[in-house]
């Protein structure tokens, strides 16, 4: 059986950054397994700019950002296998994978880093009535067809869902000469970043219809039209508000789901809120030596934060392999998400294993204006920061300091919440 210190499942931004970080922490036995024919993951089809401002202090496109990390992997001679699919991960960290050259094979790993990313919510999960003709794509599939394969997928386009990929594709299709009729969003707020509404919709006069959804799809062979209606506060269509939009393509940008079939079969505990693994401060799952980072852990808006999070996972995995993150006598402290905060990553921390600072990332469940992000140690408030807008579409973070936490008597819980004042 092949043996590696660290096996990384996924060669996208998370996997690449984790590999580089683990190498730089002294680990020399690393294998990245990637199912696509090249490294870089979804960044290869994200040809728009806006990546890397935090990491490289310059604005890059997706392929350029991926290219930087791929170069770092090459410079370090880190091993990788392309066109290879991981089939199973056992709780004992035996990874079963297959490809055309090697057939099915097993690898014994001292540590496994889960970096499989996420996938799009498909039409089947959206309960849209109507026919099932050709011409309905998830926004990311459309992005791949247009940007990588070079196909034009439609001339008159309607987009359901205001996730970032949908907004980016609204601009992309417009630039390629299509007419994007509208972006309909079920919720009363956008699921994407504000900057994308400005530069992808406003710049081209594409209407964003909030509290609207598709109630009918017409066309037997190919899509011919959709009907869009306004919805009430219970997200039920309002009679009499229906408008028919002739179109030859419908793109769906209705959320991303961490891809955790492998994690589940390994026995990794998953969060019901994020759909990703439950992790501690070391980004370690409930299974010893199995770490998670990037969109498989929770869906990010920014690749820069994926890289930063994955760096941490790579470093702690390298420490784990060397036996440097061992048992801690300190008790586990629960990080609670309350009053508007849907979840936090990580959700527990241990002072014995914690670095001097810990970044805790979270999302809120609603739009808050002029509200405060507060952090409590037990019942004592230690952080209280005013924000002009906090929205579900934008990931937030707080930073905890070990010195402050250690100095606190009988610390049981850290609570992150949104407060009006």
């Amino acid at each position, binding site marked *: 059986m092949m043996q590696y210190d660290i096996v990384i499942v996924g060669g996208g931004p998370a996997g690449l950054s984790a590999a580089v970080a683990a190498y730089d922490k002294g680990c020399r036995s690393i294998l990245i397994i990637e199912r696509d024919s090249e490294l870089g993951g979804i960044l290869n089809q994200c040809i728009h700019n806006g990546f890397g401002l935090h990491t490289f202090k310059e604005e890059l496109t997706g392929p*350029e950002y991926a290219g930087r990390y791929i170069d770092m992997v090459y410079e370090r001679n880190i091993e990788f296998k392309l066109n290879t699919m991981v089939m199973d991960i056992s709780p004992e960290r035996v990874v079963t994978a297959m490809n055309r050259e090697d057939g099915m094979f097993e690898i014994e790993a001292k540590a496994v880093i889960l970096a499989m990313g996420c996938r799009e919510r498909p039409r089947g999960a959206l309960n849209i009535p109507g026919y099932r003709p050709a011409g309905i794509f998830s926004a990311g599939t459309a992005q791949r067809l247009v940007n*990588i394969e070079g196909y034009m997928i439609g001339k008159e386009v309607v987009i359901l869902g205001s996730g970032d990929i949908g907004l980016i594709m609204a601009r992309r299709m417009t630039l390629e000469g299509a007419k994007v009729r509208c972006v309909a969003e079920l919720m009363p707020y956008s699921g994407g970043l504000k900057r994308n509404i400005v530069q992808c919709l406003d710049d081209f006069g594409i209407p964003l219809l909030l509290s609207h959804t598709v109630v009918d799809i017409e066309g037997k062979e190919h899509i011919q039209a959709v009907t869009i209606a306004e919805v009430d506060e219970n997200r039920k269509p309002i009679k009499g508000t229906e408008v028919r939009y002739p179109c030859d393509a419908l793109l769906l940008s209705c959320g991303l789901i961490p891809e955790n079939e492998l994690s589940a079969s390994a026995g990794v505990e998953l969060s019901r809120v994020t759909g990703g693994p439950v992790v501690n401060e070391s980004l370690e799952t409930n299974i010893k030596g199995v770490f998670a980072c990037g969109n498989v852990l929770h869906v990010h*808006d920014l690749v820069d934060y994926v890289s930063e999070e994955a760096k941490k996972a790579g470093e702690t995995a390298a420490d784990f392999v060397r036996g440097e993150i061992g048992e801690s006598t300190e008790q586990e402290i629960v990080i609670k998400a309350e009053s508007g905060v849907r979840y936090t990553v990580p959700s527990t921390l241990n002072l014995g294993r914690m670095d001097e600072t810990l970044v805790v990332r979270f999302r809120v469940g609603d739009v808050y204006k002029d509200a405060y992000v507060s952090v409590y140690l037990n019942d004592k408030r230690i952080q209280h920061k005013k924000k002009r807008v906090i929205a579900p579409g934008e990931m937030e973070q707080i930073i905890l300091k070990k010195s402050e936490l250690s100095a606190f008597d009988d610390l049981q819980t850290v609570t992150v919440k949104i407060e009006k004042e």
Partner: protein
Amino acid sequence: MEKRELTCIGCPMGCLVTVELDGGKILSVTGHTCKRGEIYARKEVTDPTRIVTSTVRVEGGVKERVSCKTREDIPKDKIADVMKDINRVTVKAPIKIGDILIENAASTGVPIVATANVQEA
């Protein structure tokens, strides 16, 4: 006096920036959290610009298309013309990140550069 509320597109933070104008003269810029935000706001109310990204047809490569961008931002009203130029050309593999694919896109003085590598088939 005119007040304009902008969302900065400089980075995904999307800061809300307020610009106070008087007859086209900028009186104040507030709400930005970095220098990029101020530069964006000043430009946006006087001479808005954008980076354009797209793909160019490739001949003899392992891929059909190579992604590309305007090396610097170009005037917003030139976007359509730049796209016409981009869709006119076909380039030969191999291509490396940063290679100039079009010297002077739509007479903006800005070149179109490759943002991905494409090896020869």
